[in-house]
């Protein structure tokens, strides 16, 4: 692992720190990763708004934005400029201070959560022993921000949206954290760097040891992705914003740059939680095949991140919004039981490590898959309420 490219960013940082006077080195060493994270992910936000609009367009057989610059690539610039110069309207009866603080409270904790994500080999801002705990603690603060926004706007739609958001985020926090626990159980550590480290290497020389290639890891990845979609308020779980019902929920009374900050916070949250999913189940910055290990690890992390972003765009272009009762039923009658089953399967996987007869790997796989498939089918059917879905029949019109 002595490729020149691999540790380029880390070396650059070390060199920059050494250029400073010794008294300031500690501060500079802390500031450089922070500045890098803010710059990189804010530009990724700009890029994603464009990708999302172009991608959604293509998913719906449209062209998407194509007027600003060649193929519309300058659209984020135009959007940003528009947001910056728009009038900032605050309702007369609003709680001005809270109204102002809410967008800030949305963005700052999300940025904090990036501190513990390992973006590449040795490329992590802070390696906490309880990194995943810090991530969830910081990430959960956005719920407060949403409620601050909804309450301070003094608008019924805002408050309704905020209530919905709180109900949804708290419900889905449970499956999100419990599905992440499986990876913690497997790695035996709460540190995200250690969790990535536990996924190094290859089975039989070609299949990466990512958790996603185990039955519990695969189920965990799916459950985590679903919960992450709900947690980041994206379609099909965007009922807090439901444009057709409550206009934009907690965003109704926001305009201009505060509105942009909310969107920045939402997208940053989506990237952060995708990054966590990659770290927990998809091997973090590890290369998928041994032959491609010369590619810098950061590139792999961001390649996987773009995969996640595209998945979210794809889901948004496909699925309609859920109703609140469907959302709650899905969370408590399907996600939570499945996550608990998944925890059990992880334990089974852990205790069958000692199997050493021939074909033991296959047997472990089968047992895990069966233990998950049974509850999945049963819970899925139960969620449908025994109703049969088929072509609609008519009394008279046939």
């Amino acid at each position, binding site marked *: 692992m002595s490729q020149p490219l691999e540790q380029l960013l880390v070396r650059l940082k070390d060199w920059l720190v050494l250029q400073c006077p010794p008294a300031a080195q500690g501060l500079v060493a802390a500031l450089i990763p922070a500045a890098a994270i803010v710059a990189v992910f804010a530009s990724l936000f700009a890029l994603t708004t464009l990708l999302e609009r172009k*991608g959604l367009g*293509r*998913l*719906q*057989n*449209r*062209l998407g934005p*194509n007027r600003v610059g060649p193929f519309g690539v300058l659209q984020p610039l135009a959007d940003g400029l528009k947001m910056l110069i728009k009038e900032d309207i605050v309702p007369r009866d609003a709680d001005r201070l809270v109204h102002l603080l809410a967008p800030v409270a949305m963005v700052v904790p999300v940025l904090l959560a990036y501190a513990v994500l390992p973006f590449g080999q040795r490329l992590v801002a802070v390696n906490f022993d309880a990194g995943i705990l810090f991530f969830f603690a910081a990430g959960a603060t956005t719920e407060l921000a949403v409620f601050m926004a909804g309450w301070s706007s003094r608008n019924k739609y805002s408050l309704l949206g905020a209530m919905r958001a709180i109900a949804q985020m708290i419900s889905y926090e449970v499956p999100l954290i419990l599905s992440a626990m499986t990876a913690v159980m497997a790695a035996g550590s709460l540190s995200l760097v250690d969790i990535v480290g536990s996924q190094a290497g290859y089975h039989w020389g070609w299949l990466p040891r990512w958790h996603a290639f185990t039955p519990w890891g695969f189920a965990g990845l799916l459950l985590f992705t679903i919960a992450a979609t709900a947690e980041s308020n994206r379609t099909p779980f965007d009922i807090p914003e439901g444009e057709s019902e409550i206009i934009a929920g907690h965003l109704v009374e926001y305009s201009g740059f505060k509105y942009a900050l909310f969107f920045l916070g939402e997208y940053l949250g989506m990237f952060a939680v995708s990054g966590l999913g990659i770290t927990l189940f998809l091997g973090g910055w590890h290369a998928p095949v041994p032959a491609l290990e010369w590619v810098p690890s950061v590139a792999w992390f961001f390649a996987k991140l773009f995969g996640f972003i595209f998945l979210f765009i*794809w*889901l948004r*272009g*496909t*699925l309609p919004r859920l109703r609140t009762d469907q959302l709650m039923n899905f969370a408590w009658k399907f996600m939570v039981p499945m996550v608990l089953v998944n925890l059990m399967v992880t334990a089974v996987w852990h205790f069958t490590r000692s199997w050493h007869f021939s074909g033991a790997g296959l047997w472990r796989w089968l047992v895990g898959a069966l233990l998950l498939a049974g509850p*999945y*089918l049963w*819970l*899925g*059917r139960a*969620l*449908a309420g025994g109703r*049969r*879905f088929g072509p609609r029949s008519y009394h008279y019109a046939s």
Partner: protein
Amino acid sequence: MNPPPGLGIVKGLVETARNFVGSFHDPARLTTVQYPDERLPAKENARNFPFLVYDGPDSEKGLRCVACKICEKECPPQCIYIILERDANGKPQKHPRVFDLDISVCMSCQICVEVCPFDAIKMDTDYELSRSDRFGGLLLTKAELAKPNDYYRRIHPTEAQEVDARLEEERARAQAKAKPPAAAAKPAAPAQPAPA
């Protein structure tokens, strides 16, 4: 037996993925017409706001409108305003002095066209009507409303053909009636109201 849960989502994802890939290589999927650069061919049956038809080269003399004010009276939102032309002696001329039509009020119902006995008012298809002044700019005067019969033939070919044929027939009948002065006491049939 229901299909396994979650299958519908996968099917939907496949469908949108097919859209995504298809929109890049299959032009039939991308139906977008990039409007200011490209235009769809004009539709013959389209209509939005009325205009006045004139025959011949002069938009003032050739106006078919005789200022009978039937359309003004029938117009449901009352967006038409007509003043009859009178000569120096106060004798009414068969001509409008003022014919204003407020297209900010007009609801494109086509009733004026249906009631006009002279085929003088027809529906236009021009849709690029944005104006910098939302009051005066949208109040069309006689000069703005008057358009030649050729224009009518171009935008509504089939309908214009019928109207031309009917007007020709009426003119021939009027000439035939005028030639033999005392052929019969039978009065000529009044001109049929144009059913548009």
